[in-house]
């Protein structure tokens, strides 16, 4: 399968860029849970935030990808946009019904339209393809040399509500003056990261080089089933924008702490499903499990795999059966926050915090090595258990620290 996408660049600290936009892997369950969380409080205007974040990141990537490929005609640029959409695991997008005056974009397959339903277990009452809408709008704007916010998008047919094919209507509009601009890679840590902890039998370098041999791009449907989950290789700036805008808008209603707790909860869900899926997968059995001689090795092994997800470099600083300290260089939440808002006076790495505690919950009370069935009942049992781990953000790159540090304890 030949696709014409933007240039993929590996940069320091485990980060990957496509045409300058940082990418991170996340699964359908996290995408479902995060979006559900953000849309839960009514009146925050989060649907538009999600659409616009997608539009901005897509516009930046596609504009740069077109330059890299020497594409100048709208049809060529839209072909690249469709190929990128599929390569990153978002589905398939057909721009043949859209021109500079707008029109209809179809999605025969869609991660947000079809794969969130597997996570939720049911159809939705409202379209979930907000990302697709934003991507289509950003792509059309990039193809016609217009600013990122130049098209309004709405769902005409939603697969998340049962339609066979998704359809998005695009109409030109005046780009809002304060339209969000994706900051690209953003500020990042300078200098070297300490080596992997010596207190483990897991060879992180061997894990990373084995995983580097896997094809982690979308299949012919533009979807990416792997590790027992359905992955997307998603825009870090998209996740950052929608998460931080949610926190900012919740702060405006006096519910700042609750907003942050909800994002940590989304991190737990990510750990349970993505980490849990990975740690019970055939890929884990082939590469990591043979190196795991102790329970602690399971934590080190998952940290090694996490370092292939584009989330920054995680280092286990301290690990006992009741406490884990992880230091992270260039965690994508910090770098995104710095690029979008500047320095923060609060800890912002909520996904990382939920991920660190979630990992401990899987390994210790969750006994993941025994391959339990990772269903909703099991989630409730281990994440609500008195033995559960809870995270504390101690340091944060977004607040000026050299690295982000999360402590998980029980």
């Amino acid at each position, binding site marked *: 399968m030949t696709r014409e996408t933007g240039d993929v660049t590996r940069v320091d600290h485990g980060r990957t860029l496509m045409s300058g936009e940082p990418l991170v892997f996340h699964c359908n369950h996290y995408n479902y849970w995060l979006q559900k969380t953000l849309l839960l409080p009514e009146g925050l205007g989060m649907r538009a935030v999600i659409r616009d974040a997608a539009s901005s990141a897509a516009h930046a990537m596609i504009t740069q990808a077109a330059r890299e490929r020497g594409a100048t005609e709208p049809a060529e640029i839209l072909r690249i946009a469709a190929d990128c959409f599929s390569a990153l695991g978002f589905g398939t997008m057909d721009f043949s019904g859209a021109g500079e005056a707008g029109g209809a974009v179809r999605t025969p397959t869609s991660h947000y339209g079809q*794969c969130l339903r597997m996570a939720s277990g049911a159809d939705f009452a409202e379209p979930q393809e907000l990302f697709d809408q934003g991507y289509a709008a950003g792509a059309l704007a990039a193809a016609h040399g217009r600013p990122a916010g130049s098209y309004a998008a709405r769902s005409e047919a939603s697969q998340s509500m049962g339609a066979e094919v998704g359809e998005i209507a695009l109409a030109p509009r005046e780009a809002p003056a304060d339209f969000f601009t994706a900051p690209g890679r953003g500020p990042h840590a300078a200098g070297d990261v300490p080596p992997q902890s010596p207190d483990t039998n897991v060879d992180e370098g061997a894990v990373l080089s084995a995983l580097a041999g896997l094809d982690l791009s979308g299949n012919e449907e533009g979807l990416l089933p792997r590790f027992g989950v359905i992955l997307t290789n998603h825009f870090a700036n998209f996740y950052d924008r929608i998460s931080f805008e949610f926190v900012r808008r919740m702060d405006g209603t006096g519910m700042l702490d609750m907003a942050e707790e909800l994002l940590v909860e989304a991190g737990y869900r990510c750990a349970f499903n993505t980490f849990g899926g990975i740690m019970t997968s*055939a890929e884990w*059995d082939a590469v990591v499990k043979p190196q795991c001689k102790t329970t602690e090795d399971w934590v080190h092994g998952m940290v090694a795999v996490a370092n292939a997800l584009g989330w920054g470099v995680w280092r286990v600083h301290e690990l006992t059966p009741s406490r884990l300290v992880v230091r992270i260089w260039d965690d994508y939440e910090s770098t995104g926050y710095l690029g979008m808002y500047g320095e923060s006076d609060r800890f912002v790495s909520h996904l990382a915090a939920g991920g660190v505690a979630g990992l401990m919950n899987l390994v210790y009370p969750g006994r993941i090595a025994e391959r339990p069935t990772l269903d909703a009942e099991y989630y409730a049992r281990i994440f609500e258990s008195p033995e559960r781990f809870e995270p504390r953000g101690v340091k944060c790159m977004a607040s000026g620290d050299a690295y982000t540090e999360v402590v998980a304890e029980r």
Partner: protein
Amino acid sequence: MKPPFEVERDARCQRGLRFLYRARFDPDALADALDAAYDGMVVRHVEALGDTRTERVIVQFQVEYRVGEREGEVSLTHRVSASPEIRARSHRVLEDTLTRLAA
């Protein structure tokens, strides 16, 4: 008669899409037999991970069979756009093939 395989349905993020079959089979023979069952209209790809060699047999827009990920296990993952009839056929092809190889 009891079939010569067991099936486990994925109850998680690939709910309704992914099924694990456990049986006794020779991985190469199974991959070749699946290929033949579709008259060669498949895409085959070998994935090496550590000491594990997985043969992916893909019928585009229908199904992907992964043979050899774990000993005695073959996974069947439907493509999202596969119709109920195609999904039923994908199961039938694998089950018939496993039954034939076990005979």
